[in-house]
């Protein structure tokens, strides 16, 4: 029985205007198998999943479920067959309880409403992720919210569970717990499709893998027989460098100091910062790890000046800058790479030249308040060339670039201003491995020039890769900061979960 196919997708093709998202893709999953679907952003993973879950219809191709060809008109059809999906972005109503959310999402499929609470409790405990059906979603942690989504799938008679990048919102400890649940499920005969780009997780969990590149299947493998490097090779192709040499640095004098920064939350969805203290030296890269929504956004806005707070808690090179606007802080040497590339880092419908002017206006691009277009063009061309931004020319709209290329452009634009302090949020989020290496090398070069670099990221691999010192943020508080090489992952995980009590000196010793 174990070798029969649970699912076979054959020759799936889906075209969107301008791109072929899936090109003759084949995917096959056995009973009780944990199967990984790997690929960089834009490789076509999401499209394939939407087709499998009945959200999107393929142009051509066949789906065979337990030996029979099927047609999926909508997600309810998929659920009726026993296909469950946990999306990367939760679709939960914050103000409703766990039970109400599950009942709403499943509709008639939720079964007897009276016994639903009991079933939620039993199912969640059976799989080692206890949930209280009467808690409101707003009071749950991110990890618990994910449990709600998983339990919602498990309440149905499930045969295939799809998880889209489930670990990106979890601490390392929570990831371990999730893996145990998934292994238990698989033992009971449920097949699991695990979508990720974190290779070490895939090698730890999955029995087989399908790798997508540019919308096509570029390989199949057994992850346990492979190394993360060999799988990465299949993901990015032969021509992209995937390793870089990270040297640690010890910085000079403090450039950025944050002293007792506390804020109040403007609304229920904001996190108040509580007595935040840390510093970034010239010539060092400091990282702040943390699960999204723990105050990163608020901290970034306080540092950049987009949301001014309090007084005398943010210092650049010994000067308090709390009262200064973002433009004034830029003039003191701050550069900023926000998380959202399109619609904050760059104006989508403006050209790269105009987007160069967006933040580089002080780099000799203005003459008496008027724009000197030849200089703008020249600088834009230089950024495109130096940072190897793939685009026809500087007149291309920012929205026409891929995520990685736009990020290379934005980082290049900020770096060309020769900043003294570079603040970056999730610098390589959704960026392909080739661009990642280029971006990291740019950051290293900037550090060598004596720039203070602050990186806020959820990607622990990245933080361990590039940061000289590392700390974590949880619920608006920051942990102590210690040298990256003295900080075991387990310790950082506890910090990310808010347990700062574990003695940092002890770890450092």
């Amino acid at each position: 029985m174990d070798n029969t196919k649970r699912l076979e997708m054959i020759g799936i093709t889906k075209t969107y205007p301008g791109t072929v998202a899936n090109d003759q893709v084949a995917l096959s999953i056995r009973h009780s198998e944990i199967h990984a679907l790997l690929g960089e952003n834009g490789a076509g993973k999401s499209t394939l999943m939407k087709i499998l879950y009945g959200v999107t219809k393929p142009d051509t191709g066949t789906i065979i479920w337990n030996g029979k060809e099927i047609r999926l008109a909508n997600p309810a059809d998929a659920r009726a067959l026993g296909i469950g999906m946990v999306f990367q972005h939760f679709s939960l109503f914050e103000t409703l309880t766990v039970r109400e959310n599950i009942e709403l999402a499943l509709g008639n499929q939720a079964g007897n409403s009276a016994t639903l609470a009991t079933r939620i409790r039993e199912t969640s405990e059976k799989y080692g992720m206890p949930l209280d059906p009467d808690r409101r979603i707003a009071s749950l942690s991110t990890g618990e919210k994910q449990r709600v989504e998983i339990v919602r799938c498990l309440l149905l008679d499930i045969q295939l569970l799809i998880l889209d990048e489930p670990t990106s919102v979890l601490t390392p400890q929570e990831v371990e717990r999730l893996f145990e649940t998934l292994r238990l499920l698989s033992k009971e005969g449920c097949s699991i499709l695990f979508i990720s780009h974190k290779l070490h997780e895939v090698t730890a969990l999955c029995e087989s893998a399908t790798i997508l590149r540019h919308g096509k299947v570029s390989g199949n493998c057994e992850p346990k027989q492979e190394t993360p490097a060999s799988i990465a090779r299949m993901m990015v192709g032969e021509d992209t460098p995937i390793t870089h040499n990270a040297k640690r640095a010890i910085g000079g004098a403090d450039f950025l100091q944050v002293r007792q920064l506390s804020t109040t939350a403007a609304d229920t969805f904001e996190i108040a910062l509580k007595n935040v203290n840390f510093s970034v030296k010239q010539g060092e890269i400091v990282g702040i790890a943390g699960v999204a929504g723990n105050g990163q956004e608020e901290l970034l806005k306080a540092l950049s000046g987009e949301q001014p707070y309090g007084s005398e808690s943010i210092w650049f090179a010994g000067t308090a800058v709390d009262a200064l606007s973002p433009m004034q802080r830029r003039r003191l040497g701050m550069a900023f790479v926000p998380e959202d590339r399109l619609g904050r880092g760059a104006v989508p419908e403006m050209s790269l030249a105009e987007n160069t002017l967006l933040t580089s206006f002080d780099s000799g691009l203005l003459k008496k308040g008027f724009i000197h277009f030849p200089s703008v063009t020249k600088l834009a061309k230089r950024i495109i060339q130096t940072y190897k931004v793939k685009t026809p020319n500087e007149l291309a709209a920012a929205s026409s670039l891929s995520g990685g290329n736009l990020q290379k452009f934005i980082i290049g634009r900020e770096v060309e201003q020769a900043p003294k302090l570079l603040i970056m949020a999730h610098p390589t989020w959704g960026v392909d491995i080739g661009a990642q290496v280029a971006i990291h090398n740019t950051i290293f070069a900037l550090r060598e020039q004596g720039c203070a670099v602050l990186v806020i990221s959820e990607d622990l691999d990245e933080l361990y890769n590039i940061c000289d010192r590392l700390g974590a943020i949880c619920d608006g508080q920051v942990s102590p900061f210690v040298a990256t090489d003295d900080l075991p992952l387990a310790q950082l995980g506890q910090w990310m979960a808010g347990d700062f009590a574990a003695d940092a000196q002890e770890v450092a010793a």
Partner: protein
Amino acid sequence: MIRLEPRPAISGFWTYASPVTAVLLTLITGAFLFAALGQAPLEALHIYFISPIADWYGITELFVKAVPILLCAYGLALCYRAAVWNIGAEGQLLMGGIFASVIAVQFVDSDAWLAMPITMLAGVAGGMVWAGIVAFLKLKMNTNETLSTIMMNYIALNLLLYSVHGPLKDPHGFNFPESALFGDSTLLPILFEGTRLHLGLAFSLLALAATWVFISRSFIGFQIQVMGQDQAAAKMAGFNKTKLVLTVLLICGGLAGLAGAGEVAGPIGQLVPHISPGYGYSAIIVAFLGRLHPVGITLAGLLMALIYMGGEMSQIFLGLPNAITGVFQGLILFFLLSSDVLIRYRIRWASNPMKAGAA
């Protein structure tokens, strides 16, 4: 089945083809409309759109009508590029007319050369005050400017009526709700003998050049467009929203106020209850029809002026009600908004997408 499919990128072709399409569709619909009203369609269209500008005097009248519309529309385009939805050019124009009249009636018997410039500046100030109140409400009270500007239009209209019935009423005017006739020193000089075309044309050409340079060459103009397209990016770059919102509103208010001053000290020559047949409102259509670009606006403004004149012509020669002007304005706006869909979407005659899958 017809369906709309998002384009991968904005269509440059349709950005400019859309207003042309809208005008053509308006003409075609107009032909049917005239036919339904029992007129010979082509002849009626000829009377409406050709006869008003068939002679030199007609052409100068076209510009007389276009000047106030254009002054308002150039300023509105700046606001709209900043995503400040100012619907208040009409009120700002009326306030310009009132402020200008307050000064002008002081100079009725004077021949001081300063009379005309001061009257114009008073008009500019009037429009700026009115727009400035909107800026204050928006920036300090977080008021939606679309609503506040519309309300301010009504307040301005009632202030105008109060002025002509009260403080500015001509004491020797037999109790008509009109101000005294302005003195020659206050009136805008006529550019061509025997016509009504006045110095306002020069103001409007200056405004064309100035707003064009401002929006396409100045750094503030760039900041305005960034703010209009992407508030988060403007904030990230550190652009000062207060300053930018204030700038566009004050420029627009000033230009609309100048338009109002130009009307009372130009073709009208005194303050009357009806100094504008909705120029400030039609300027909104003109701004969008002209793609918020000063050159496009100039073409669209001339067309709008023609629609006003055609409305009067069809009243006289076809015996149609003046409402026909509003109908044509509405048609143009309606077809423009419809055609603009094609900038971001394309039409597909879709077959069932699953047919291919079954093959």
